[in-house]
């Protein structure tokens, strides 16, 4: 009972803390300096249509690298937590039809995913969304056949090398453009605004992010969903 009172007090206190913020909240009617610079920079310096992508991949590229790392850590962490000595094999056949259908869907979804992250600088979406979609494709496989044996080697290779190349592209910036150019997309010519091959290294980085995220999420799903 006393516990309930304290919970009530805590929540009430939080509400009272946040209330002035809501009361005084006054929406800006235009972009701040930094955001405007981003919008203009995205158009003029980076040739990227999607400003969010420019921000994510370039201006706040270090965050994105960190975010990929977080996901990577979660994968490793779940692998570490749920480590088992041996994988037991039990087979549970699902219907043929489901399997065939899912394999067909698999290809379709993966292609969509790739499309999304390749167009990250042009349309909404990008590496993360594409990556999730790819993982969803494999999820279908898991659902169709709980004991599906992925080719873990390929998965690991994709996961490791997409990440490594991502960092190395960043590193290339350091090598080519100087000490302040880690993750600089201008190591690749910017191309023309609005085209698929534009925005310098942004599509490349986003593709690598997509592959990395896709393979990581697949691993997580496999670890948590597999038996």
């Amino acid at each position, binding site marked *: 009972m006393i*516990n309930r009172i*304290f*919970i009530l*007090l*805590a*929540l009430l*206190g*939080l509400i009272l*803390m946040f209330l*002035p*913020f809501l009361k*005084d909240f006054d929406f800006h009617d235009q972009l*701040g300096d*930094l*955001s405007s*610079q*981003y919008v203009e*920079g995205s158009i003029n310096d980076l040739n990227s249509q999607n400003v969010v992508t420019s921000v994510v991949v*370039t*201006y*706040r*590229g*270090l*965050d994105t*690298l*960190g*975010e990929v*790392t*977080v996901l*990577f*850590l*979660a994968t*490793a*962490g779940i*692998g*570490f*937590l749920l*480590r088992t000595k041996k994988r037991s094999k039990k087979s549970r056949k699902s219907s043929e039809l489901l399997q065939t259908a899912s394999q067909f869907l698999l290809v379709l979804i993966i292609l969509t995913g790739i499309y999304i992250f390749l167009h990250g600088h042009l349309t909404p979406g990008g590496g993360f969304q594409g990556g999730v979609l790819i993982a969803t494709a494999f999820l279908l496989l898991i659902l169709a056949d709980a004991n599906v044996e992925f080719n873990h080697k390929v998965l*690991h*290779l994709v*996961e*490791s*090398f997409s*990440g*490594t190349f991502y*960092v*190395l592209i*960043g*590193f290339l*910036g*350091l090598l080519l*453009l100087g*000490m*302040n*150019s*880690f*993750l*600089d*997309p*201008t190591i690749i010519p910017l191309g023309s605004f609005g085209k698929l091959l534009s925005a310098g290294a942004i599509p490349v980085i986003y593709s690598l992010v997509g592959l990395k995220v896709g393979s990581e999420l697949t691993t997580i799903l496999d670890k948590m969903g597999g038996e």
Partner: protein
Amino acid sequence: MVNPIYILILSLVIGFLLTIIDKAGRKLSLFFLYGVLSFNVAVMFIWFYQFAFVGRASLMIHTAGFIAPISINLKLGLLEAFVLLLANLAGLMSAMFLFKKLKETHISGLILYLVLIMGVNGLVMTRDLFNMFVFIEILSISTYALISIDENKRSFSAGFKYMIAGGITSTFFLLGIIFIYYFTGNLNLDTVLGNSSMLAMKTGVFSIFLLIVSIFIELKPFPANGWALDVYQAVNSGITSVIAVVNSAAILFVFYKILPLLPDQYLMVFVGAGIVTFLFSNLIGIKQTDPKRLLGYSSIAQMGLVVAAISYTTKLNISQDLVFIMAGGIFINHFLAKAGLFWITGIIKRSEIKDWGILRNNTPLLLLFGVLLFALAGLPPFPGFWAKWEMAKIFVSNNLYVGLAAVLIGSLFEAFYLFRWFGYAIKNERKEESLKPVDFSQLFPVAVFVLITLLTSVWIMIRVYAFDLINFLPVAAVFGMYLLNFLKAKLKAVLAIIVVILYGYSIYPLETALQSLFGIIFVIGSGIMIITTMNRKGKISGFYGFLLMMILSMGNLIIAKSFLSFFLNWEFMTIAAYLLILRGKKGQVPALTFITFSLAGAYLMLAGFGFMPNVLSSNAIINTIGSIEIPLAAMILLLLGFLIKSASFGLHIWIPGAYAEAEDDVTPFFASIFSKTGIFGLLLVAISFIKHSSEFNPFYWLGWLGAISAIVGAFLATFQEDVKKLMAYSSMSQLGYIIASVSLLSHLGWISALYLTLNHFMFKAMIFVAIAGVIHRTGTRQMYKMGGLIKKMPISYITVLIGIIAVSGVPPLSGFGSKWLLYSSMLEKGWYLQAGVFFFASGVSFLYLYRMIHTIFLGQLKYEHQNVKEAPIYFLIPQVIFIMGIMAISMFPNLIIKPLNSIVGNYFASTIMIDGYNVTSSLGHWNGNMVMMVTMGVFIVPLVFLILFNGRTQKVKQFNIVFAAERPESPQTTHFAHNMFSHYYKALGGLTKPRIQNFWNSVSEWSNAIAGLFRQIYTGNGQTYLLHILLYIVVLYIFLGV
């Protein structure tokens, strides 16, 4: 120069590839892991060197080809490099400690570890708020996962609680970031710092508060820290040390980075919260017996203190050097000691501190443990000591007295539980199980950290405070003797005497005669007393080192040139004394009592010194103190500190245990020499007081305290069966005389004080050494078990006899002179009542002195003592030397009165006249030489008579049984010496009821009860912990008062 961003790149690339690398074997993966971690250390070492010694400006690294605030930037300056050097080093060492674990575990463990360390580097360097959030998440997630390295239920449940707490705090952090973004339109810390418009609004301050408080919660403030304690207790020691030091260091640095966002007037909330954390965590720690949870409480407390220090220095805007010593000192102290101790808990693997006696089987590990523990307790020469010194000064100069008191009380609690643990490790030996050989991979990291701790300490002493080499001697002696441990005890004793002689020679000549007087007691007296210890056999490791430490630090007190140097050596002395008491067979509890009281005294003194100006002088402090006015508050604090050392009434309860349980040949050091340090301290304060007397005179009350000590000590001594306890209380009583005569603040008073001091030094030394010989031969301390030893140990008997005469003030020996001086000075001052009390106390003294000599040496010899021999020669030499000393000053009082007269003449106008052997005061005169002659005459006449007419006595054999009867149930009760003064006890025993003992016991019980009460909040339920966090945020916000 290596771009520090390479640390991130290399760690990530290797981290990403490690799964594949591992296919080629674990050895290769480990190679890469250790390679990258070493690379990190190397990079940070280079940069630290560049910033600290080459003077490079700090480095800004921007990313993505844009300059901040458009892009995220990293900063590497001196502070960053310093923190990261330590953090990376701890990371590497912890990885080494975990070597066996990492060799076997899943490869993900290595990846998590590597990226964790990378996260720390990123977190410290980044200047972008949201980027901090990302790095905090990297840090947290890898930590969460690594918690499960030992797959036990406890670590999983601790991990889950940690995740709930961490998840919510980072949510609040995120909210704080986005609110700040809303107000400033920016996320770059430096830009946001320059933007003060947001501070104009309440909600702006609220946003900053939210940001800072969530980082603060990550630093585990009391009481919102239950989750952290569980993690410390349950998780593998290698990982715990990473969490406790590496993670904390990074988070602390973030706190330091973002703290300037908050306007100065709000910072006190965090100072207060930090100090509360320090006080309460340490309080609760005293109930804890699981070493890892104990270290957890200590970690939390230390982080609280660092937070308080950082917040306060940020508020005050004081000089960088002081910030470094104060906040940095506590930080580095905690960092090194905590990591090392957590590793040791991983080596010992005992979850009850009672079982730590096993540590004794491994001497090097014990030494490492000891160094780290003493460092953690904030004792010199370790960095925490200097930090507290500066902290006291800063707190006092800003009138933050409550804060200082809380910090000092908290420190005392911390010292208490740490030393209790240490006591168990030293004393609780368990023969049946032995420690497995320790792996090099586990010992090495501890050794490295101990080495760094020592080097840092030396660095601070030399570079920051510019101490003379002589201040290092006490510590150097310990390590020197440790290296010479292979030598035989006798050789070591000779060596120790040589060191003392050389030391004495090096400080000679002293500036004033007052110094010389105490020099004689502290240095020459100690040198003589070492002879006693030569009777020991074997190697007796760890004895002479500590003995020398005590002697040299006492010597340093006399020549200390600043308060800091004085206090430093005072602490050294206390440490050495503690370790010596702990060596006694049943020394564990008395040593703990001793160190607790001594540290309480030391902290009072620390607070007192906080009020004092910094003295820069080439003269010893005892000579310059006259020109310094000590504020009244400081005076009272200092006096209390010194009174503890001189076992004044009310603060005396450590004395019987410490004297009785110290080894028999060490007790004389304590009783006759060590106790005089308190008197020296009193004089230090008194000299300043007489030159700047104030309206309130604390010394009047001190005089009464001395009188009470004298009478109570005498009574307590009277009813003791244990001869060493008897002598201990006798010391308390005698020191009461000295305290009172110092308090007279008059010429005659001080002469009697110094005379008493010298007298007590000699007779107490003689008696204790003689008693040590008796105990050595008879094997008991109970007086009723002895008797008739006069025939077996005549020289010891004579020593005790002379000693007793000197104590009791019977003519002809020096005691008579001292009493004459005492009463004269008291009457002169008009202290009639006090003089009466002393007169009565002297009468009581007769009782116990008579009892002692009678029951030990006279009466019938015990059957089991038939073959007892005279004490060994090593015991007799000091006795003879001191007998000669006593005789000399008794026969020729001028030898001593004249110098004393000139010493005291520096402070008071002389009121006595010395004419030949005649000392004349306003009340009469005393001729010591004459008294001696007359008494000798009176003595010799009956002696001659007895010798001539004593032919008719008949000698009866002792065991010639005249009558036989039933054997009593408990024979000792029939012995006349047992409960000898029971008739007096009926009348006066009420005075000796252990009221003071009961008072301190109830203090201890109450502390325990309060600790027990407070720790109930740690219910072990993750939801309760979450509730604590939320309530804490709300309460802190209320305190912020926006």
